[in-house]
């Protein structure tokens, strides 16, 4: 029987899911909660709540201090602030940044490979523009 995990902040309910195991940092140290755990009320330290689902998936939620209540396999984490790590587009944003960098590199390489003649032509154009501006 899974544990129903609810993480509630003053702004909204961050997560309400069924998990087979929940690992949290309490004032007494890190504890893992499995189904049929003894009823418990504990102070939570700033840290993370790690949930493992029945299908093996993991979910991590960063939490601030608060209180945990566990009874009848229903774990409630009442915290002041929480951020679901899955929602942070960390991996995707890193990928995106990498892709952008590579693109940029490619395009600069293309520009750097301008032929000598073309370069001279450009330079001449810029000079003539400058001269025009100066004479005005």
């Amino acid at each position: 029987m899974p544990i129903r995990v609810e993480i509630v902040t003053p702004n909204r309910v961050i997560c309400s899911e069924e998990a087979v195991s929940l690992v949290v940092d309490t004032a007494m140290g890190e504890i893992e909660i499995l189904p049929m755990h003894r009823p418990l009320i504990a102070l939570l330290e700033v840290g993370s709540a790690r949930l493992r689902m029945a299908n093996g998936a993991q979910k991590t939620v960063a939490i601030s201090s608060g209180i945990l209540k566990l009874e009848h396999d229903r774990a409630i984490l009442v915290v002041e602030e929480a951020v679901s790590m899955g929602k942070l587009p960390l991996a995707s944003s890193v990928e995106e940044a990498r892709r952008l960098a590579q693109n940029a590199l490619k395009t600069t390489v293309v520009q750097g490979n301008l032929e000598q003649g073309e370069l001279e032509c450009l330079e001449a154009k810029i000079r003539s523009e400058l001269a025009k501006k100066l004479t005005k």
Partner: protein
Amino acid sequence: MKGIREIKNRIRAVDSVSKITLAMQLVAASKMKRAQDFAIESRPYLLRLSEIICCLSEKKLKKNMHPFFISREKQRRCLIVVGTDKGLCGVLNHTLFKLIPEEEETSFISVGRKAMQFLSRRKRSLLASFSIHDRVQYHEVLGICDLVAKLYLEDQVDVVEVLYQKFGNTLTYLPSLQRILPMDGFYDVFDQMLKSANLEREHFQRDPRGLLWEPHVRQIIDHIAKIFLKYNLHQVLLEAKASEHSARMVAMKNATDNAKSLSQSLKLEYNKARQYAITNEIIELAIAATENH
């Protein structure tokens, strides 16, 4: 019948008023949506918190007394009145202020300019006056919280209550008086919350194995006492804001509708007056023509 020019001026005035009220209605509508979402989404937090507090048996509370949980014999009241900053929101403030008790010894803390004006006009003992931003900020709540806790701990007041408009839906707001200190009536508060969330108390049956408190009940009570006061007030302010914006939206919508119907009847009157003038002119012409013959 009034002059044509006069009616025309009135139509113009009414139309411009309806334009203004329509704009205000739209502004209030967008603010209303946000305020309502905030108020509704933060309700579960308080419910869960009071669920935890309800695990504290009376025996435990007595053994680990926190001043916030002790009710006193004396009953000097301090009332936080949550009004609005601006007007034009129908009878919202009026219905709330009607509930302000007449007892002389009650001291007040006002939130919102309208509440301050009302209390100072009545020469009540106003201790402090706060103003809250449309989007309720935590530091604003903390200010009120600190003051209230200080007054209570320094023994200047014995009961702290808050009077505000509880948000029901866009059309209904309930003026409510809620005690926030001392926090001894938890079971009542919890039952009320359950009722509003459509849940039964049996839903939260005790586990026979008994609760384990880590690290110690005392520390947990201290923590709860600190945050419950803060978030209780926070929730109250969110509800009050949601009611305010809803009331303003409805009031402005009514004003716009009234202005439109007034403008329509004025236009009818204007057309009648114009027709009357034209008919008169034709009659005069006709008379003049027959006299000339």
